[in-house]
């Protein structure tokens, strides 16, 4: 065995000599006996190693454990079940809260939409009822205001057509009749309204209203207008001023 082999074996001999092959161990100690350098090194390392192993480990003082236990209790308290639950399920809780908020918002939104639609419907019914009442029973100015209610509406129902028809032909005040005529002309694209207007042209007792009707109808359909004007001209009961107005108009059209 060489000196370099001794260096490789020294740690094993110091730490666990029984684990070394007996033959190797024998050769190791034979070399040590013969080689003063290796013997010196081995003895010094052995003494140093023994000294290291003799060092008594320091003993923790009793407070170390007490302090640890106190800290652990505090830690357990801080990470109690509720907190642990919150942490472990934080994403679920967040998702739940989000869903709840979204659900509430959607619910609120759709409820509001329904409410608004319902209110609009109620308002329309109220306006309808209020207007029809005024048109039947109130004063001239109130009736004219009520007729203005039709501004902005795209169509009118049969009930209002009937009310306006009555006003156009039978109301005591010519201004109210004229307002009704103007209101009806806005819906003259509705066949029923047109029919009311044409019929009124024949039956109208107020010349001013007749002239208004002539002006309104002749610009809608030229052939029909000529027919309307001829009806007035040929009617014996027609007012002379209105007849004259119709004759002038028909000359323009023909």
């Amino acid at each position, binding site marked *: 065995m060489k000196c370099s082999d001794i*260096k*490789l074996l*020294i*740690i*094993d001999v110091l*730490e666990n000599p029984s684990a070394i092959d007996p033959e190797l161990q024998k050769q190791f100690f034979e070399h040590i006996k013969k080689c003063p350098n290796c013997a010196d*090194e081995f003895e*010094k*390392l052995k*003494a*140093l*190693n023994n*000294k*290291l*192993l003799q*060092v*008594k*480990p*320091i*003993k*923790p*003082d009793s407070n*170390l*454990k007490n*302090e*640890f*236990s106190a*800290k*652990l209790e505090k*830690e*357990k308290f801080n*990470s109690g079940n509720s907190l*642990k639950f919150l942490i472990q399920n934080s994403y679920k809780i967040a998702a739940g809260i989000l869903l709840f908020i979204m659900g509430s918002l959607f619910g609120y939104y759709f409820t509001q939409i329904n409410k608004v639609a319902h209110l609009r419907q109620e308002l329309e019914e109220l306006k309808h009822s209020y207007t029809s009442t005024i048109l039947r029973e109130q004063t001239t100015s109130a009736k004219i205001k009520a007729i203005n209610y039709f501004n902005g509406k795209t169509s009118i129902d049969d009930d209002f057509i009937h009310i306006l028809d009555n006003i156009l032909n039978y109301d005591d005040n010519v201004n109210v009749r004229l307002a009704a005529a103007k209101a009806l002309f806005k819906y003259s694209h509705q066949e029923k309204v047109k029919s009311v207007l044409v019929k009124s042209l024949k039956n109208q007792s107020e010349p001013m209203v007749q002239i208004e009707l002539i002006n309104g109808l002749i610009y809608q359909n030229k052939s029909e207008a000529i027919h309307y004007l001829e009806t007035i001209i040929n009617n014996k009961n027609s007012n002379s001023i209105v007849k004259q107005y119709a004759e002038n108009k028909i000359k323009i059209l023909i």
Partner: protein
Amino acid sequence: MENLSDEYIMKKIRQGDLDYLAYIFERYNHQMLNYFFRMSLNYEDSRDLTQSLFFRILKYKKSFNQNMIFKHWLYKMARNILNDYFNKNKKYISIQDDININSNNSIDQAEQDKFLFQAIAKLPDEYKELIILSRFCNYKQSELAEIYDTTIASIKNKLYRALIKLKEIYFQTDKYGLL
């Protein structure tokens, strides 16, 4: 509880049962206190480092998995704590004269240990840690090889060189001529 493996106890800690940390503390506080003390030569700081180590287990419990060996994982964490401590305090380089080795030791023994630890403190970091882990913290060669991610033969070689270096330093300071 004595029969439970470290790894099983860690599994329970991971599951949130913090009471199991006390068992780990019982098993390793002595060893880790010695490691910190032999490395830092400051008993009070070693106590604090030991406390920090065991509560760091809670902080990083999720990083431990069943394929790991707890003792190795613990040591690596202790080493990180110690590095932070040295970087923060710069006490690593100072060799304290008032080393309080152990109140249970005799004065003569304390004096002898003082010289020995002064010699150890002068070792290069790698050798110093190897001596401390193998001789004061009972780490076997196979465990050291795992920790340092090397072979047992390499550990033996390093231990040999560490002892040779320590012998040289100690001879210069061995006033008692004990060797």
